[in-house]
């Protein structure tokens, strides 16, 4: 099979993971900017991180013949500090011309606080000004429902943003319809405990179709599985899906969304 991994934090993974992904049929990996597991002490830490995402990591992936793309932002977990967050956002425009940058992400909310919303609004404005795609992280667990609705409503209220250029990630059964009804795309994250399992992800795709829903591993430094996407493809096969449908879900659908960025080119 061939597939696209639309959400993976490869800076936190080993080269063994690159080998395994490419062996499983991965044709491209997309890496959103995220929280490092600790708060960075200054915007200089983000400057280096953006260089890593736009220079070093694509070169590392290229050693395994895997095209690597990235999204830039300050994540909502570090948005409570408005001074830091504004400094980081000011750094982003100079990186938007890098050849592997797809857009602004993963932005969003974490605890649904006022400062998080202020910084989310700045990111959305940045995306609108520079005609960038948007990738959204929705909050965890009990905060997801409220956060998803707040985020979708904010983006919908900005007439400069075309909803078909927005992907709302980490949807679950209680948020997927809100995202689909808004005309946006949805990402289903395959995690061993939180977010969704493969059977639940496939249930959602059976209910809402694969036109605007993709699956990702969101693998990072935490409990996560870098091969979760091809494992979900195996689960679809177990359910009786044919190769054509599996190719649609795991390759053509993410390709359709990501190809809205001129920078998303596969060899």
């Amino acid at each position, binding site marked *: 099979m061939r597939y696209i991994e639309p959400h993976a934090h490869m800076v936190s993974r080993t080269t063994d993971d690159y080998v395994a992904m490419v062996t499983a049929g991965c044709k491209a990996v997309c890496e959103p900017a995220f929280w490092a597991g600790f708060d960075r002490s200054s915007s200089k830490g983000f400057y280096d991180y953006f260089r890593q995402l736009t220079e070093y990591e694509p070169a590392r992936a290229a050693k395994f013949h895997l095209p690597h793309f990235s999204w830039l932002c300050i994540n909502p977990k570090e948005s409570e500090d408005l001074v830091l967050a504004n400094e980081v956002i000011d750094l982003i425009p100079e990186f938007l011309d890098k050849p592997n940058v797809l857009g602004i992400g993963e932005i969003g909310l974490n605890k649904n606080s006022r400062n998080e919303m202020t910084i989310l609004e700045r990111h959305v404005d940045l995306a609108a000004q520079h005609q960038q795609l948007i990738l959204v992280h929705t909050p965890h*667990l009990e905060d997801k429902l409220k956060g998803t609705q707040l985020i979708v409503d904010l983006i919908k209220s900005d007439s400069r943003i075309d909803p078909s250029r927005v992907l709302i990630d980490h949807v679950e059964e209680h948020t997927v319809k809100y995202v689909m009804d808004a005309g946006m795309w949805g990402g289903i994250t395959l995690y061993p405990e939180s977010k969704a399992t493969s059977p639940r992800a496939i249930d959602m795709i059976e209910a809402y179709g694969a036109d605007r829903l993709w699956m990702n591993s969101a693998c990072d430094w935490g409990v996560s599985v870098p091969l979760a996407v091809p494992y979900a493809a195996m689960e*679809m096969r177990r359910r009786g899906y044919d190769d054509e449908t599996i190719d649609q879900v795991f390759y053509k659908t993410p390709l359709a969304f990501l190809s809205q960025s001129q920078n998303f080119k596969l060899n």
Partner: protein
Amino acid sequence: MKPAKPQNPVDLYFMDARSKLIDIAAFMDRVEREGATDDFRYQAFLEALKELGQADRARSVLLSLSDPTKELIPAATTKAACGAWPGKG
């Protein structure tokens, strides 16, 4: 979307669901045995179990465990979520 060759979901998933069901039962026995039933997360868990009695269960369980409020909070004092909404109890 439906598979070309639909499989019996009970054949596919019964053993997995059976195992998870017994794990839930053992978890509840353990919490009771250790006298931790007052924990708001456990109370939220018991509430969410009631959602299994009707259709649309996955969505209903998730809604039951969610913060139902609409307003932004003044400030984030933690980064973590715990899986149940503390405001319910």
